[in-house]
């Protein structure tokens, strides 16, 4: 029998260890992808994923069965990823941008030349645009869902996504030239 995310969350609330493990299995990849694309290195992304699921577990008692699990999970993911950026020192930021230029050895995935350029360009985007673009075009969330996750008005989210992808387009064009 396949349980919905919400059913698994309720079972986890009641202390079902396997249900919570199933939730991690379902969402570890999307959560890691969001964190990695936003933070730019796998070590920080791994720490952020770990912290996300621990926070989810600690806040399970607050999860309402009438709500959907995914936006709630992404909201916590986004908050944690933003905290990681805030905690970074200026010299660490420089270090990470250098690492992303050189390629992260732990993200052992073959990318096409265009994808490699997109990955780098994404990390150069201003943070507020970066997260909006990740949620819209990598996680393919609806605008309203992104607005809920980021706690922003719908029109602001649209503006962030549009500006973000415009900057990306310009950056990619510059690389081509």
């Amino acid at each position, binding site marked *: 029998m396949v349980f919905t995310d919400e059913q698994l969350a309720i079972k986890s609330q009641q202390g079902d260890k396997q249900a919570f*493990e199933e939730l*991690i299995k379902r969402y570890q*990849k999307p959560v890691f992808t969001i964190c990695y694309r936003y933070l730019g290195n796998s070590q920080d992304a791994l720490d952020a*994923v770990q912290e996300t699921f*621990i926070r989810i577990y600690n806040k399970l*008692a607050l999860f309402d069965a009438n709500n959907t699990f995914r936006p709630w999970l992404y909201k916590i993911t986004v908050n944690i990823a933003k905290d990681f950026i805030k905690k970074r020192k200026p010299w660490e930021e420089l270090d990470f941008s250098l690492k992303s230029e050189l390629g992260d050895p732990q993200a052992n*995935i073959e990318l096409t030349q265009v994808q490699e350029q*997109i990955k780098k360009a994404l990390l150069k985007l201003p943070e507020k645009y970066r997260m909006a673009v990740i949620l819209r075009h*990598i996680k393919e969330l609806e605008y309203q869902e992104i607005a809920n996750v980021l706690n922003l008005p719908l029109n602001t989210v649209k503006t962030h996504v549009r500006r973000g992808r415009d900057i*990306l387009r310009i950056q990619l064009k510059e690389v081509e030239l």
Partner: protein
Amino acid sequence: MNECMNIYELIQKELDGELTTKEMELLDKHCSHCFACQELRQDFFQTIYGLNNLPELDPGEALIETIMNTIYSKSPAQKNISSKGLTGIVAGLVLFCSSGIFLLGSVIISLIAGGLLYLGYENFSLGFIENIIYWLTYGYNLLSVFKHVFNNPYSSIFLVTVLLLSMVSFTILVMLLYSRRIINYEKV
């Protein structure tokens, strides 16, 4: 040029799947003769295609184990009251009960003592209740009270017994606290 600005907006709307049929026709028509907008449209689509096709990343199998070990080595989810909070509640309850017992005890002792003092005083001009009230009201005048109390051997024995019992109770309470049966400070 102004028309191209409008086309830019239409391309953005197209990327979000918000174009009407009429707008789509307008966009296609414009791009068929404007090379710059055609290129812009193509660049946008290439960017979005690239973003959509970035692979989903796998954090590795070890992560689940690490998370599960971190979580389940601690207290379970349904225990949302922390150990510190629980200790605080227990401490509060103990204090509340102690003060309640103290208040109740002092009233009971006053009543018993008043009654016995009535006998000790041998002041039969006042009634039993009046004597208790008298004792409660003027009880601060210990010297005069004690003078009468120690004249009666039964009252003296009662007072010494109350004093001894109070000391024993206090000692038991202190011992319980030290033996940590009431509050375990190590777990705070």
